[in-house]
C-alpha cells in the first residue's frame, strides 16, 4: 500500500508540470495568430489592450479589457475574448469560471480544440477523469490538419493518464506508449520523462516490476540530463522507492540521499528564489523610498519655486505701486508747491491791501478829525462861511472813505464767492443814470460837464449790482482825474453782435502807455502806487476787472497823457431767445 501511495503522489505532482509545459509550448504559435487578429482589428482599442496583457501574462488586466471588449458591438472577437478570459481564470485557478468561459466559445472558433484541451486538463485536475477522457478523445478524433500546433503526444499522454486513473490498464498502456513513441520522435525530453514515469507507474501498479523498472531507470537517466530539480527529485525518489522495494537498501539509500540532495537543492533554489524575491522586494522598497524621497524633493522644489515666483511677482507689484505712488506724490508736491506759491502771493497781496486800506482809512479819519476840530473852532467864532466849506470837505472825505470800504467789502465778497450773482437784462442808460445821480454834487463842485449819451435801446446781460460797482468806480476815477471844468461823457459805441461797448470818457490827466498796459494786465496783484495823492489803492481797478470777467465782459483803455482817458467796457448783450 505504501508503494501505491507513493505512486499516486508522484502522478499527481507530475500534472502541473505537464500542463505548464503544454501551455508554454503552444503559446508561441497562438500568439502570432492573436497578433494578426489585433492588427486586423486595430481600431478595437480594448481588444488590443486585452491581447497585449494576455501575451504579457497579466491576467487581471486581460480580464478587465476583454470584458470591455465583450460589451462592445464587435462580435467577431468574442471568441478570442472568451478564450482570453478562460485562460486567465484558468491561470488564476478559478476553474469554475474558466470552464464557463471555455464553454462560451463557439464551435466555429479556430482554436476550439485548445479550449477542449484546456477543459480536459481542468477535468483531469479535478479528478473528473471520465469527462476529461471525453474531451481528449474528441481532440484525438480531429483530423491532423485542423490541429495546427497541438502535439498529439500530449493528447495521448493525457488519455493514457485518464485510463490509468480509471484503472483501464490496457488502454492506458496503449496510449502512453503511443505518446512516448511520439515524444521520442519529437525528442521532447521533459515530456518523455513524464511518459516514462507514467508507464513505469502503470506497470508498477500491476506489480509488473520487471517491466516497470527499466522505464523508471530510463526516466531517471533522462532526468539527469535535464535541469528541472523537480523532475530529478521525482525520478530519484521513484528509483529510491523501487530499490527499497527490491530490498536493495544501499542503492535505495543512495537514491534517497540523491533525492534528499535534489530536494534540498530544490528547497535551496526555492530559498534562493525566496531570498532573491525578498531582496528584490527590498530593493523595490528601497527604490520606492528613493522615488518617494525624490518626489518629496521635487514637491519641495516646486513649492520653493512657486514661493519664489509669487514673491517676485509681489515684489514687482510692490515696486510698481511704489513707483506709482512716488510719482503721484511728486505730482502732488508740484501742485502743492504751485498752490503754495500762489497762496503766498495772494497772502502778500492781502497783506499789502490791508496795509494800504488801513493807511487810507487812517488818513481819511484823521482828516475828518482835524476837519471836525476846525469846524468846532469856527462854530465857536461863528464863522459860518468857513463852516460850509469844511462840511463839504468832510462829506467828500466821508464819501471817499465809504467808497473805499464798499469796494473792500465787495472785493472780500468776490474773493470768498459769497456774493449773490444773478445776471439779467439791464437797461444800460438807466443804470448809468442811477450811478451818476450820486456823483452829481461832486461833479457840480468840480464844475464838470457830464453827459449821458447811452442809447436807450441798449440792454446788457449782467448782474445789476456788479455793473453798478463797475460804473461807479470808473466814474469815480474819471472825476478824480478830471480837472476843473472838464468833461465826462458816458456813451455807447456801435455795438457788435454779441457785445455792447460802454465808454466812459474824461478829459483828465490821462496816463502813460506803460501804466495803461500795467492796468490791463491779467494779474491778481494790486498795481503799484505811483502817485499817492491821486491814485488810490488800485483795489477799485482790480475789483472792476474781476467783476467784468465774471460778467463775461472785456475791458479796454484808451488814453493819452494830458488829453484824457477812455475806459471801454464790453458787456454781453441780452438776447431774448438764447
Amino acid at each position: 500500500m505504501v508503494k501505491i501511495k507513493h505512486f499516486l503522489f508522484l502522478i499527481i505532482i507530475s500534472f502541473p508540470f505537464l500542463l505548464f509545459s503544454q501551455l508554454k509550448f503552444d503559446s508561441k504559435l497562438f500568439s502570432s495568430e492573436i497578433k494578426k487578429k489585433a492588427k486586423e482589428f486595430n481600431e478595437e482599442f480594448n481588444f488590443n489592450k486585452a491581447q497585449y496583457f494576455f501575451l504579457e501574462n497579466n491576467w487581471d488586466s486581460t480580464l478587465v479589457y476583454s470584458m470591455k471588449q465583450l460589451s462592445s458591438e464587435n462580435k467577431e472577437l468574442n471568441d478570442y475574448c472568451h478564450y482570453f478570459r478562460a485562460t486567465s481564470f484558468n491561470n488564476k485557478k478559478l476553474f469554475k469560471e474558466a470552464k464557463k468561459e471555455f464553454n462560451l466559445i463557439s464551435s466555429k472558433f479556430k482554436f476550439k480544440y485548445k479550449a477542449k484541451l484546456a477543459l480536459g486538463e481542468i477535468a483531469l485536475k479535478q479528478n473528473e477523469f471520465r469527462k476529461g477522457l471525453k474531451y481528449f478523445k474528441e481532440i484525438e478524433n480531429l483530423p491532423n490538419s485542423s490541429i495546427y500546433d497541438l502535439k498529439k503526444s500530449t493528447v495521448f499522454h493525457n488519455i493514457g493518464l485518464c485510463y490509468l486513473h480509471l484503472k483501464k490498464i490496457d488502454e492506458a498502456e496503449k496510449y502512453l506508449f503511443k505518446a512516448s513513441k511520439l515524444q521520442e520522435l519529437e525528442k521532447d525530453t521533459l515530456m518523455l520523462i513524464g511518459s516514462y514515469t507514467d508507464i513505469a507507474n502503470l506497470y508498477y501498479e500491476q506489480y509488473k516490476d520487471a517491466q516497470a523498472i527499466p522505464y523508471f531507470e530510463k526516466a531517471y537517466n533522462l532526468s539527469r540530463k535535464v535541469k528541472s530539480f523537480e523532475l530529478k527529485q521525482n525520478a530519484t525518489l521513484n528509483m529510491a522507492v523501487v530499490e527499497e522495494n527490491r530490498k536493495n537498501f544501499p542503492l535505495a539509500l543512495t537514491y534517497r540521499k540523491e533525492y534528499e540532495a535534489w530536494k534540498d537543492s530544490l528547497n535551496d533554489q526555492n530559498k534562493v528564489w525566496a531570498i532573491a524575491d525578498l531582496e528584490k522586494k527590498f530593493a523595490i522598497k528601497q527604490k520606492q523610498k528613493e522615488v518617494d524621497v525624490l518626489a518629496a524633493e521635487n514637491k519641495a522644489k516646486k513649492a520653493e519655486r512657486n514661493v519664489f515666483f509669487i514673491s517676485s511677482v509681489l515684489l514687482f507689484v510692490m515696486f510698481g505701486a511704489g513707483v506709482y505712488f512716488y510719482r503721484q506724490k511728486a505730482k502732488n508736491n508740484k501742485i502743492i508747491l504751485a498752490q503754495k506759491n500762489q497762496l503766498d502771493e495772494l497772502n502778500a497781496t492781502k497783506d499789502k491791501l490791508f496795509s494800504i486800506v488801513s493807511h487810507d482809512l487812517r488818513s481819511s479819519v484823521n482828516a475828518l478829525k482835524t476837519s471836525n476840530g476846525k469846524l468846532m473852532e469856527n462854530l465857536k467864532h461863528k464863522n459860518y462861511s468857513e463852516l460850509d466849506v469844511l462840511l463839504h470837505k468832510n462829506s467828500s472825505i466821508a464819501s471817499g472813505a465809504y467808497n473805499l470800504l464798499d469796494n473792500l467789502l465787495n472785493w472780500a465778497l468776490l474773493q470768498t464767492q459769497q456774493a449773490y450773482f444773478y445776471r439779467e437784462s439791464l437797461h444800460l442808460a438807466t443804470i448809468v443814470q442811477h450811478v451818476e445821480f450820486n456823483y452829481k454834487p461832486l461833479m457840480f463842485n468840480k464844475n464838470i460837464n457830464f453827459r449821458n449819451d447811452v442809447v436807450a435801446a441798449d440792454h446788457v446781460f449782467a448782474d445789476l449790482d456788479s455793473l453798478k460797482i463797475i460804473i461807479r468806480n470808473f466814474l469815480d476815477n474819471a472825476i478824480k482825474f478830471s480837472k476843473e471844468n472838464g468833461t465826462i461823457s458816458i456813451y455807447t459805441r456801435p455795438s457788435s453782435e454779441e457785445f455792447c461797448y460802454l465808454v466812459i470818457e474824461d478829459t483828465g490827466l490821462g496816463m502813460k502807455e506803460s501804466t495803461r498796459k500795467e492796468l490791463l494786465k491779467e494779474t491778481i496783484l494790486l498795481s503799484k502806487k505811483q502817485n499817492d495823492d491821486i491814485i488810490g489803492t488800485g483795489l477799485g481797478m482790480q475789483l472792476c476787472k474781476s467783476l467784468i470777467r465774471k460778467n463775461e465782459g472785456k475791458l479796454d483803455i484808451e488814453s493819452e497823457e494830458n488829453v484824457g482817458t477812455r475806459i471801454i467796457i464790453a458787456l454781453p448783450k441780452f438776447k431774448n431767445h438764447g
Partner: protein
Amino acid sequence: MDNINVLIVEDTPAESDALVEVLSENNYNIVGVARTHQEALTLFYQNTIDIVVIDVFLDGKPDGITFAETINIVPDGQKPFVFLTSSKDRQIFERAKLTKPFSFLMKPFNELEILYALEMAVEKFYEQTNVFHSEDQNTVISRDSLFIKKNKVLKKVQIKDILYIEVEDRYCNIITDAEKFVILISLTKIIQLLDPAKFCQTHRNYIVNLSKIQQINVNDNLIILKGNHKVTLSDKYKDFVKNFRILK
C-alpha cells in the same frame, strides 16, 4: 389817474421816513408803514395795495421774506414787491429768490434807484418787461388796471373806468368818465392784453368797453357810450353786435 398805493415794510424809522419822503415826492401814495411782519399782514389785507416795499431784515430776522412768502400763498392776492437789503448774503438771496417774481434793491440806494426798482417790480410781476424804459411803450396792463409811466411818474387807471380807447398812430387816447389822456402802446399789444370779454374793437381806431355801451345805431354806424360819447362802428367790425341779445 390815480396814484400808486405803496405799503412799506421797514423796521428802521430813519429809513422808512426817507423812503416815505422820496416816494411821496414822486407821487406815490403811501398806504402805511409796517414795522413787523404781523403789522404788515394787517395793513396788506386792509388796504388796496399796488406795490409792497419790503426790508428783508425786520428786527434782525428775515421776516420780510416770510411776509413775501405769506402773501404769495393766496393766488389772487399777490402783488408786486421789492426787497430792500443791505446784506449780500447768498443764502438770504437764495431764499428770497423763491418768492417769484423777485426784485431787490441794495441799500444804500438813491431816488432813481428806488423808483426804478418799483417800476421793475411792476414789469416783472405782470410779465411785461422792458416797458417803462423803452421808447415805444409806457404802459403795463394788469387784470384791473393800467400802470402808466407819465413824466417819470408812475400812475394807475382802473380798467373799469375806461369808456373807450382811440388809437392814433403809436399812441392810444384813453377816455374815461373823468378825463382823457394819451398812453404809448401799440394797438395790437393793447388788444392782446385787454380782456376780450370786456373790450371790443369797433373800428380800425376804436376799442370800446362793452359795459359802457348805451346805444348801437347800426344804420348810422354809430355807438353811443355812457356820457354821450360817440364812437364809429365800421362794417368790418359789425359782427360784434351779434354778441348782444337783440330785443325784437
